[in-house]
C-alpha cells in the first residue's frame, strides 16, 4: 500500500512522514499530482491559517486532484489539524470555502474561564459512536492538540469523537472514506501510532 502525505507548504510534514515510515508503510511527501493519483491512501496534514491552506492547495494545483481521488475514486483521506478543518464547509478564520465534505463550520475558541487559547496540550477523546478507527484506544488515552479554531454545529452522524476544553467540541469526524482528527496522532506517542495504523490498515469498501 502506498501512502501520500500532501505537501502544500503548510507546517511540519516531517513528523507525519517519520511516524508513518516507522510504522512500516511505503510513504511519500509530495505535491505532485501523479503521486496522489498513485497513492492508495492520502494524508492531508497542516498547521497555519485556513485561507493560506486553501489558497496553497489551489496554487499547487491540487484541489481537483484531491477531489477526484477522494470523491470519484473513493480513496481514504485523513485530514489532520488544519487538514481536518479544510474538510468542513467553511471557517470563520478566513473567507475561503473548505472542501465541504463534512457538514460543519469551524469557529474560534471563546474564552469564558481561566483556560487559555490556543488549546495547546494533551487531552482525551469521548467517542461518539463505535468505529474500527478507535480499536485499541480507550477514553483515558491522551492526544496532542494545538489549535485556536474548532468544529462547530457538525452533523451528528459525522462526529467520531469530542473532547473538552473550555467546553465540549468535535475533535474527530468521519464520513465514508473521509476522516479528520483535530489532534496530532503523529505526535501522540503510542496512542497516536495505533490510530494512524488503524486508519492505514482499515479496508474501506
Amino acid at each position, binding site marked *: 500500500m502506498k501512502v501520500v502525505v500532501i505537501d502544500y507548504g503548510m*507546517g*511540519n510534514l*516531517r*513528523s507525519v512522514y*517519520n*511516524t508513518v515510515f516507522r510504522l512500516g508503510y511505503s510513504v511519500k511527501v509530495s505535491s505532485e499530482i501523479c503521486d496522489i493519483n498513485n497513492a492508495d491512501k492520502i494524508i492531508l496534514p497542516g*498547521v*497555519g*491559517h485556513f485561507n493560506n491552506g486553501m489558497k496553497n492547495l489551489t496554487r499547487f494545483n491540487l484541489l481537483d486532484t484531491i477531489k477526484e481521488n477522494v470523491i470519484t475514486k473513493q480513496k481514504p483521506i485523513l485530514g489532520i489539524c*488544519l487538514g481536518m478543518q479544510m474538510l468542513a464547509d467553511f471557517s470563520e478564520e478566513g473567507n475561503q470555502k473548505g472542501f465541504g465534505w463534512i457538514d460543519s463550520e469551524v469557529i474560534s475558541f471563546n*474564552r469564558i474561564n*481561566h*483556560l*487559555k*487559547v*490556543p*488549546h*495547546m*496540550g*494533551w*487531552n*482525551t477523546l469521548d467517542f461518539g459512536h463505535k468505529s474500527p478507527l478507535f480499536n485499541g484506544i480507550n477514553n483515558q488515552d*491522551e492526544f*496532542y492538540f*494545538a*489549535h*485556536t479554531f474548532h468544529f462547530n454545529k457538525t452533523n451528528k452522524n459525522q462526529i467520531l469523537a469530542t*473532547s*473538552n*476544553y473550555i467546553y465540549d467540541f468535535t475533535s474527530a469526524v468521519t464520513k465514508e472514506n473521509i476522516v479528520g482528527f483535530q489532534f*496530532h496522532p503523529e*505526535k*501522540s*506517542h*503510542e496512542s*497516536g*501510532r495505533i490510530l494512524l495504523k488503524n486508519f492505514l490498515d482499515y479496508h474501506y469498501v
Partner: protein
Amino acid sequence: MYRPRIIPVMLLKGEGLTKTIKFKNERYIGDPINAVKIFNDLRADELVFLDILASKEKRTISLDLIREVGEEANMPFAAGGGIKSIQNIKEIINAGAEKVIINTAACLNIDFIEKASNEFGKSTIVVCIDIKKSKFGKYKILNLPRTHPLKNNPIEFAKLIELKGAGEIIVQSVDNDGVMKGYDYKLLKTVSDAVSIPVISLGGAGSISDFEKAINNSHVSAVGAGSLFIYHGSRRGILINYLNYEEKNHLKIQQNE
C-alpha cells in the same frame, strides 16, 4: 480531560546538552538524541531545545540535530537559538520541529513576531523572555536593549508579544535557573493573568509540588524544567527522569477542581 503540559527543557551548546545555574556554571550533560530516546520511553508531553550560544555566535540551532530529534521524538518539540528570519523558521519546521522559540530577535524587533505568526500560524511561534531581578528587586528583561521603554515592564512586553500574534510565552527566571528551589510564582502569575495565550514557566522547578503551585496559583498552562529532569539526588548525579502516570494525572485533577 485537559492536562497542563510538563516540558523538559534541554539546553544545547552546539550538538551537546548542557545545564546552567543562573545562566552560568555550564556543565556538560550528554547526547541530546539519547535524551530524546529516554523521554520517549518516559512519555514526556513535549520537549524544548534551546541553543544558548547560537545568538552570541551569530548562527542558528543545528538543523542536523533538529532532523535527528524529529526522527526519534514521539512527542512534539520546539526549537530555539539564533532564529531571526522567516527563512530560519522555514528550515527548522521543515527539519521536523513543531514550533520555534524566539528570544533575542523578538527583543530587537517585535514586528518579526507578527511576520512569523502570519506566515506560520500562531501555534508555531513561541516567544521566550528571560527576566532578571535587579539589586533593587525590579524585574528587567535581559535581552531588551537598555533604552527600550518596556525594558523594566515584563507584563507590558508580554501583552505586546500576544498582540503581535505569538501562540505562547515562556517566562524564564534567570535568578532561579538551576537553583531548584521553586519558580518565581508572583512573576508568573502577573504575566499569565495579563495575557490570554498560554504561559510556560521556566527556571527553578525542584519538585513536582512546584509544578502544582505554578499551575494552580500562577495559572500557567505548561511547566518547564531542566535540572529536575536531568539530575538525581542532592549531589546532582545525571539521571534522566520524568513524572509517572499517576503523578501526571494528579496535576490534571488539581487543575479542574
